[in-house]
């Protein structure tokens, strides 16, 4: 087993919460993990990414080679496209539909969606809106993790356990809502263009 996941977004959007959930779930399953992240200047509203590698064998490189990512999971649609060279031919791309516009030449949204749809294995989720309905738009991360859970070779049990662990210092309500967000994402992705999914 060997899975490569690229997480992408804009500094401050919190992709590292998704990374932490994946890391912990992998360790629960006794798998090897390497996860690189971006600290420093780019965190100030710049493009950020995290490479997550999970395997039952020794992992060498902290970075995923081009053309080797099984999944790009993005909290922002344009940021997803930035990492396309890393995607495997039959890899999956999953993104929140909501753009984060903090740059003058941000492209037309429809053009972004068109580019994403060119790739057969895609899922576009309105994760921020769904998270807002559940209680807090910040939980979009967990909606996206849920949406990707079909692709990630970690059990649902480990992922949920990991979410519990991640928020263990927060209120019980917040933990419950994050788990709810995860399941919401899972459900939405399952119903997304089913013929094409999995």
């Amino acid at each position: 087993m060997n899975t490569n996941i690229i997480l992408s977004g804009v500094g401050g959007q919190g992709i590292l919460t998704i990374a932490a959930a994946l890391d912990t779930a992998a360790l629960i399953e006794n798998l090897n993990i390497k996860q690189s992240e971006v600290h420093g200047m780019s965190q100030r509203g710049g493009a950020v990414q995290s490479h997550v590698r999970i395997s039952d064998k020794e992992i060498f490189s902290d970075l995923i080679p081009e053309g080797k990512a099984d999944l790009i999971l993005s909290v922002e649609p344009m940021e997803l496209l930035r990492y396309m060279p890393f995607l495997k031919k039959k890899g999956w791309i999953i993104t929140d539909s909501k753009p984060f516009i903090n740059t003058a030449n941000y492209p037309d949204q429809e053009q972004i969606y068109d580019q994403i749809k060119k790739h057969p294995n895609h899922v576009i989720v309105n994760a921020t809106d769904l998270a807002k309905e559940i209680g807090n738009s910040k939980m979009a991360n967990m909606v996206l993790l849920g949406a990707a859970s079909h692709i990630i070779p970690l059990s649902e049990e480990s992922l949920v356990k990991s979410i519990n662990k991640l928020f263990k210092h927060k209120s019980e309500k917040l933990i419950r809502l994050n788990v709810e967000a995860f399941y919401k994402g899972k459900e939405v992705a399952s119903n997304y263009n089913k013929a094409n999914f999995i």
Partner: protein
Amino acid sequence: MKSLLLGNEALAQGAIDAGLSGVYAYPGTPSTEITEYIQRSKTAKELQIHTTWSVNEKTAMESALGMSYVGKRSMVVMKHVGLNVASDVFMNMSVSGVNGGLVVVVADDPSMHSSQNEQDSRFYGKFAMIPILEPANQQEAYDLMFYAFDFSEELKLPVLLRMVTRLSHSRAGITLKSRKKQNDIALPADTSRFALIPMNARKQFDKLINKKSLLVEYASNSGLNQLKISEEKSLGIIACGIAYNYVMENISDNDAFYSILKISQYPLPKKMIKRLYEHCDKIIVIEEGYPIVEELLHNYFDDNDKIKGKLSEDIPLTGELNPNIVAQALGIHKRGSKTVPNIVASRPPQLCEGCGHTDLFNTINELIPEIGDKNVFGDIGCYALGSLPPLNTINTLIDMGASITMAKGAADAGMKNAIAVIGDSTFTHSGMTGLLDAVYENSPITVIISDNSAIAMTGAQESTAVGRLHNICLGIGVKPDHLKTMIPLKKNHDSNVELLRGELQYKGVSVIISERPCVRLSRDQKEEIKSKIASLS
């Protein structure tokens, strides 16, 4: 379950477990999390390990040396350019030697993710003639700390441990060992080696020179450098530190095929290199940073064609390595077939929404039509982003503290209305001495200290400047009439512009402290700062 740690955190935990008594550091990406981890560690608190930030890398390293002098294990941590600041003590403590184990951890930043250059700290280690360790992965970063401290005490030399951004900021599961006891106080038997008057320094320098062959011997026998010879002779690989991972990423399916020398300890194990060189028709050196090993190989063998690497342009001379670059260098072509769609726009970093620096820049920009658009000297920190559009306020960024001294030099040359913009922590790090230069000559410059009460760029760490700026400036000799304060808020824009205009007209040193806390500070941090200021006044 293994502990999930960043490379920086693994190293920090390794230091704690190896009997550390104090870490000294100034924040700097990619090194910051090492000290922060020890600051948060319960064990470190119980053991009363010193963790408070220092004013700069030089004061940090000197304090670490002081702790080593009394026999305890100390560590000093910085980013690569921080070693320039600390280079005075660094070069001299290799001559004096140390007493308790002293490890200098320097995190290099190839690709300049958060830096102004790509300097390779291994050159400094070589320059100071001390051992260098270079972990390839997180577990090695943890394990090497034990070896580093023992080795430092055995040789009575500081040990340089080189990290790179990618290892510093990547997580993995780590297996921990049992913790060693801290050293008791044990002063050096003879203190004269720490008193580097020429007659002592000459003796010490001879000793240092004579240790060289011993260091090479250690590098061959410690087990950290590993040579594997296989039958195939076409290509031998030398892989240093993290580069080993990129090599193995590409050849692990077929690694019996290649002869490989994995380097994690310097000076280089010459005999191992010789064996590999004689066995193979071609040698490729894969190293993160400058081609330092490749150059040494050219010195050893004087055979330009056989040695490949960055100098031979098989690997780019700039930027960090990655698995694709290394694949290409090894003649294995693996690339993705997809490209980035051309609609994707670049997204450079920018100042946070509601940041006080932005309001300060808007104030300065109001006066740019009057004073010219090349007069603002900047410094290191978030406010360096003021050099980018849409603000375009700042013209220069060179090193910590250079805003004030460059403005002074420009004013000496006849520039009118020279402005320096410097953060509170950068000011106490390296700005104060330059301000004294300017005050001494009453140079016509206007210094704006953009005080956000934090070391913001690296994650809002505590700034030693908090509550002290006003008195520092008066103490240095800034005239009270020209030491002003402003609050950079939209509602104060007009009065701030007038204040700045007024000070620009003064033909001497003015300092304006522009005060507004960083938006990234938590409520608790803001409260702490308030009580600190109250306790100082």
